[in-house]
């Protein structure tokens, strides 16, 4: 821990053949509303950036309050405000142009209320140059006719995936919700249907109530929890998913520091989503987390991220040799 960075680690990783110079991925819905903001995240340390989810038609979203910091995390019910896929194409085109010279990958994010809607948006979006498409089947803020239903059902999520894969050759990530009984089952279904990766997780449904007035705080009443409170849920989901599928996972939820990122990689993630950290650590969130991660890796003599990924399971099958410096204590077994 206190060792000086002797040698800096290679922080790059690959998702569906796309190289990310850093494992940090700007999560959808944060700063993803303009090419300028996407570029800002890229320049400050993200290895890939995800645009705000767009829907076939424009949406104004919910009334305020839409985002609140409740002390142990954030909760939001933006209601997917977005200009619709038509305008989104311009944003993606320009963002792609700006990101290419930086070597940072662009992920488009789409949502729709039918599998067909997903496929139509995917076909449009694929033409304007994103490196990947993320299928947001898990936004919890849209009522039963929309969104959530896909991530809650293995069959529905798989159908969306298959329909999209049929119209584009771009790598597809499917973004899953923690609000299901068995997230691994959903992950298996979408991977069987052709998903090239999984983004896990979206926010966890919750509610804040103001004691003084007796009112729900969010205008939408319920919203999605993100930030610190979400981290153990996200780690568990990523670990569950990594145990059953073999595609890369963008582990997302409550990553605020380099150590959080190490935990997420240890759970089995290939890359690490960063959203609420922008609130908790300010606009330098990406560079801070990237530098902490680099320092940790160097301080522990790691040369690349493969030496961290999935460590929890290496440890369980403790006969498996690792190239990590041995962690004192744990490999003594019970003979001591």
């Amino acid at each position, binding site marked *: 821990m206190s060792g000086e960075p002797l040698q800096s680690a290679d922080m790059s990783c690959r998702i569906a053949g796309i190289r990310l110079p850093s494992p940090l991925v700007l999560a959808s819905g944060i700063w993803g509303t303009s090419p300028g903001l996407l570029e800002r995240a890229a320049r400050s340390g993200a290895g890939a950036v995800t645009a705000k989810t767009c829907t076939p038609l424009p949406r104004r979203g919910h009334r305020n309050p839409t985002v609140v910091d409740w002390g142990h995390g954030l909760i939001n019910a933006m209601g997917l405000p977005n200009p619709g896929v038509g305008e989104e194409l311009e944003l993606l085109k320009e963002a792609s142009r700006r990101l290419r010279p930086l070597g940072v990958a662009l992920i488009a994010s789409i949502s729709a209320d039918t599998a067909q809607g997903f496929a139509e948006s995917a076909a449009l979006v694929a033409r304007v140059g994103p490196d990947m498409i993320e299928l947001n089947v898990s936004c919890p803020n849209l009522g039963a006719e929309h969104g959530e239903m896909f991530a809650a059902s293995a069959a529905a999520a798989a159908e969306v995936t298959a329909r999209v894969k049929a119209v584009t050759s771009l790598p597809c990530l499917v973004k899953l919700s923690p609000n299901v009984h068995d997230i691994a089952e959903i992950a298996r279904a979408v991977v069987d249907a052709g998903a090239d990766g999984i983004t896990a997780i979206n926010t966890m449904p919750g509610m804040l109530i103001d004691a003084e007035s007796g009112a729900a705080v969010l205008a939408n009443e319920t919203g999605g929890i993100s930030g610190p409170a979400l981290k153990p849920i996200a780690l568990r989901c990523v670990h569950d998913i990594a145990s059953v599928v073999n595609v890369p996972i963008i582990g997302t939820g409550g990553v605020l520091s380099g150590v959080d990122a190490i935990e997420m990689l240890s759970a089995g993630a290939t890359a690490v989503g960063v959203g609420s950290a922008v609130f908790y650590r*300010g606009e330098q969130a990406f560079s801070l987390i990237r530098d902490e991660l680099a320092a940790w890796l160097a301080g522990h003599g790691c040369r690349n991220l493969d030496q961290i990924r999935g460590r929890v399971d290496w440890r369980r099958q403790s006969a498996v040799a690792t190239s990590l410096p041995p962690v004192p204590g744990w490999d003594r077994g019970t003979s001591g």
Partner: protein
Amino acid sequence: MDRGGSAHQPHRILERVQENPKTVSLVLEGSLACSPGQFAMLWLPGIDEKPFSIAGNDPLMFTVSRVGTFSAALQALCPGETLWVRGPFGRGFTLAPGNTLLVGGGYGAAPLAFLAAALRTACPRAKVEAALGARTSVDLLFVRQFDALGVAVQLATEDGTRGSAGLVTEIVASRLATEEFSRVRACGPEAMLEAVAELSRGAGVDAELSFEAYMRCGVGLCGACEHRGRLMCLDGPVLMMAHDGS
């Protein structure tokens, strides 16, 4: 790293001051650690939540001009009732030594009065002057407050009912021409801010301008408040002109 929760805090209204026919100041019980130029999100359950400049922090105060639904609901509050405050957020004005010209339009005078008081404490030797503009005499705000702080005030009204007839920016031009000022701090309508930016650039002085924008999250995440590449709730609402030329 732990900011603690910044969720809405209920504040009882102590005083409701009718500043002019369309403007009301709400003085709240309690205080808020913040700097002039920062804003807070004001919430009325079941109605809406919108950003307002902090017009004083101990006691906490907001100055509300009647525009539409929400500002009307705020103005209808009475002492003893409750207002919910989330914040403070954003970047405020820098408190720096050097003679400073404050330029306010409409309710923009409110955060400037808060700034003037803070400058008096932080930089007691700096000369601070204010130039305030409005359409007509009754719209002028906080003239007495500046006076009380020993801040010389120059006034402009478009109809000439008080101070010089015309725009406040004419006063700014003449005050900057004296070369007595090294800093300008402005808050008001966007057109006024543009003109002040131009004049400050010409005079080579350091200018900080407080902009408005449509805000949702208020904390730098959602992108709703983007204005020329800046998030006004995170990078602003006060922007330094020197660096970005806006």
